């Protein structure tokens, strides 16, 4: 199409101006890519952490626990729930857990804490916690009274390896106390875990919960999927199972609503700031394109006098804007791509500013932020920048096509 050829040549007649304008747009796009990439990276990392260190992608627990967590709100027929979930063939790991809010005491001190009873051989928490052991060893399967405590808790209780610990918890009006012994001390770097978490076997946890008619209770069954995207699919499948009436299937979004809100909020903030950038870039573009059109009034008048229809003239200017947008976007991809690659590989290291992992919205936020960009995001941002550029070029194009040839030639 000769229109495009003309448009391309017109752009480069004023190379310096074209380059400055396209650089402005490219900078805007590059900035958008980097900032969204960092934002997405941080959010995804928080979600993954929340799932991995929390209760998995899906959780089956007693109705009412989510709104008001309490020791007595447990699955009475925990083993039945576990059996059904395992039989459903979930692609991932299934972890039965008991969790009790308790008072942890030694001879020297008493502290609030959380008792987590897990399958010490199989639970995904093992992978997360075992590497962080600084003293002692992981629990043996055949050790009914073994406990693992965090470094801070060990210091506060003045408990060394082998020390006696009493776990006291109230369950439905009754208070249970059980004695345990410290087999290992872990240090995760996450204050919450190091100060409050006590890990024990399921057997230990079961001693604290009343078992009726031989049914073994559980607080929840946590399901860790291999593929995040499968979460909604398996939620439906599990909800369709003939689980006991008291059981409820929840996704991680329902388990971590504070995190979901935080991400939405943070995203919104990011978009508002990008909007600012976009608005200012638009002002700059309109300026340039308008000027380039106005100074060619005589030339356009000539083209009209030679028979070019106004519509084609409009098309010509729009084609120029289109090509400009194309060039700018490629430039923007290069800038943004380079920035994203660097940040995805090395990350933005904020550890010098805050060495500890920050607790935000109920989940840990790593001070080393890595960028993550999905193709959808790139497409969306590119589309927005492209659209904005085209819209900016609309008014100047209309101006160009409207001037009567006689008037134009008089300039």
């Amino acid at each position, binding site marked *: 199409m000769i229109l495009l050829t003309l448009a391309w040549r017109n752009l480069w007649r004023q190379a*310096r*101006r074209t380059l*400055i304008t396209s650089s*402005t747009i490219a*900078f*805007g796009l590059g*900035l958008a890519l980097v900032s969204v990439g960092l934002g997405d990276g941080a959010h995804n990392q928080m979600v993954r952490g929340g799932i991995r260190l929390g209760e998995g992608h899906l959780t089956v627990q007693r109705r009412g626990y989510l709104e*008001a*967590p*309490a*020791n*007595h709100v447990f699955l009475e027929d925990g083993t039945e729930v576990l059996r059904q979930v395992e039989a459903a063939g979930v692609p991932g790991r299934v972890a039965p857990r008991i969790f009790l*809010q*308790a*008072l*942890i*005491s030694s*001879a*020297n*001190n*008493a*502290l*609030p*804490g959380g008792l987590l009873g897990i399958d010490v051989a199989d639970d995904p928490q093992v992978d997360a916690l075992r590497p962080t052991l600084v003293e002692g060893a992981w629990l043996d399967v055949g050790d009914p009274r073994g406990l693992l405590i965090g470094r801070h808790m060990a*210091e*506060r209780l*003045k408990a060394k390896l082998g020390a006696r610990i009493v776990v*006291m*918890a*109230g369950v*439905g*009006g009754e*208070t249970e106390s059980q004695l345990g012994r410290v087999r290992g001390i872990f240090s995760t770097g996450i204050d919450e875990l190091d100060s409050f978490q006590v890990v024990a076997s399921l057997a230990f946890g079961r001693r604290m919960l009343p078992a009726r008619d031989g049914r073994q209770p559980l607080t929840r069954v946590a399901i860790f999927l291999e593929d995040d995207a499968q979460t909604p699919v398996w939620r439906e499948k599990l909800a369709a199972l003939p689980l006991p009436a008291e059981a409820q299937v929840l996704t991680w979004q329902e388990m971590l609503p504070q995190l979901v*809100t*935080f991400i*939405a*909020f943070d995203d919104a903030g990011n978009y508002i*700031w990008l909007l*600012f*950038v976009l*608005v*200012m870039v638009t*002002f*700059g573009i*309109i*300026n*340039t394109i*308008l*000027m380039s059109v106005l*100074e060619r009034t005589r030339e356009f008048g000539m083209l009209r006098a030679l028979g070019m229809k106004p519509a084609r003239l409009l098309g010509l200017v729009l084609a120029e804007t289109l090509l400009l947008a194309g060039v700018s976007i490629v430039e923007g991809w290069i800038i943004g791509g380079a920035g994203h690659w660097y940040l995805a590989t090395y990350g933005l290291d*904020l550890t010098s*500013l*805050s*060495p*500890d992992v*920050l*607790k*935000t*919205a*109920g989940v840990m936020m790593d001070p080393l932020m890595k960028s993550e960009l999905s193709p959808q995001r790139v497409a969306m941002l590119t589309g927005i920048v492209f659209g904005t550029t085209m819209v900016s070029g609309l008014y100047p194009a209309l101006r160009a096509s409207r001037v009567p040839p006689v008037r134009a030639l008089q300039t």
Partner: protein
Amino acid sequence: MSAALPGQGPRRAARLRPAWLLTLAFLAWRNLWRNPVRSALTAAAMVFGVTSTIMFIALIEGMKRDMAHQVTDLTLGHLQVHREAFRRNQDLYAVIPDAAAERLRAGTPYRYAPRVYAGALASAGQASTGVRLMGVDPALERRVTSFHRHVRRGRFGLDEPPPAEGPAAGHYPVLVGFQLAKNLRIDVGSELVLITQAADGSIGNGLFRVAGVLKAVDPIMDRMGVVLSMEGWQSLMFLSGGVHELAVKTGDVTLLEEPQRRIAEVLATFPGGEAEGGPLQVRRWDQINPGLSDALALTDISLTIVAVIVLGIAALVLLNTILMSVFERITEFGILMALGMGRGWLMAMVMVEAFFLSLLASAVGAGLGALWAWRLETVGWDISAYMPEGIDWAGVSLEPIYRAYLTGDQVVKGVVFMLVISMISALLPSWTTTRLKPTEAFKR
């Protein structure tokens, strides 16, 4: 003005006369408005940049203040005194002797609020959870922190002794964190059972009554906090000889070096061996809560980056505009140079145009920015519809209202920043005017 023959190269610039400056200014201003649309568009972009920068800075400053205030005014105080062993490990027996507190009160002009802590098991109805007890002296606490006003429902009520009669006879009043109240399903007036491991190793227990539910303080207090009077605490723990913590209030939260030194002097007169639980230590709030200072420093940096980017883009727009306006006036500049206007003057004229435009934009931007920021300061930005429980970040819980804090120097900074960046970006295009040869210019 001396004439030169063609081909002899650049002429000397004539000597500076004050009247010429005025002419220059007039020329520059008039040049701006020869193309009103373009100047307006460019100014609009810059106004946008300045306004949003000022608003953003004020908002962040407000948030920082809220967080710092939350921490110091609410619970921490300006400084705190602990035994080393308590600070490290929450050692129950590592107390600040009563004699030390007395000596501090006598020897320094600051105010002190004593606190004691312990872990306990709290039960209400069927629900039960581990909690952290905090014992305070209500009268002294009021003089150091604003804790007593931080009650969401009910009232502070810890000054009142337990009622002598009725269903709650002998029950000390307590305050509970809002999340704890939710989890235990209790509210004002509910009964609470507390079981502890007392200082002598025996089991302490008692019945208490909820007098109030607290607003957001920090995640630990919100989820596990139970506040009682000293007597109430002692009825469970029977710890004698001293307290765990003294919260200190001085006259000025920004000048804490001197108070810290004076308090340390007094504390040094008390033995601090291992038997007592280590030396008595006094720390400033930013030493106690470095996570918060770190988070605040982080905000400062991201703020600077954002401001630079936003203003940088505005300056780019200006650069764009000046470049174009220079190119389209090449013929005119050529004529001016042929008539004897020195190169330096041409460049100065373009720079002055840029200066006027950015000055105008900065003034408008500053006005709008200040107005909006002031509105955000007085009315605030209420996001409780989205986050009803507030936000918790870096160990502090914030109520869901963003309040800005506007200071004169923020506005000045924004304006000066814009002007400086604009002038720098105007340098290149205005410098190109000096490279013009008049004869070349005529050819265009």
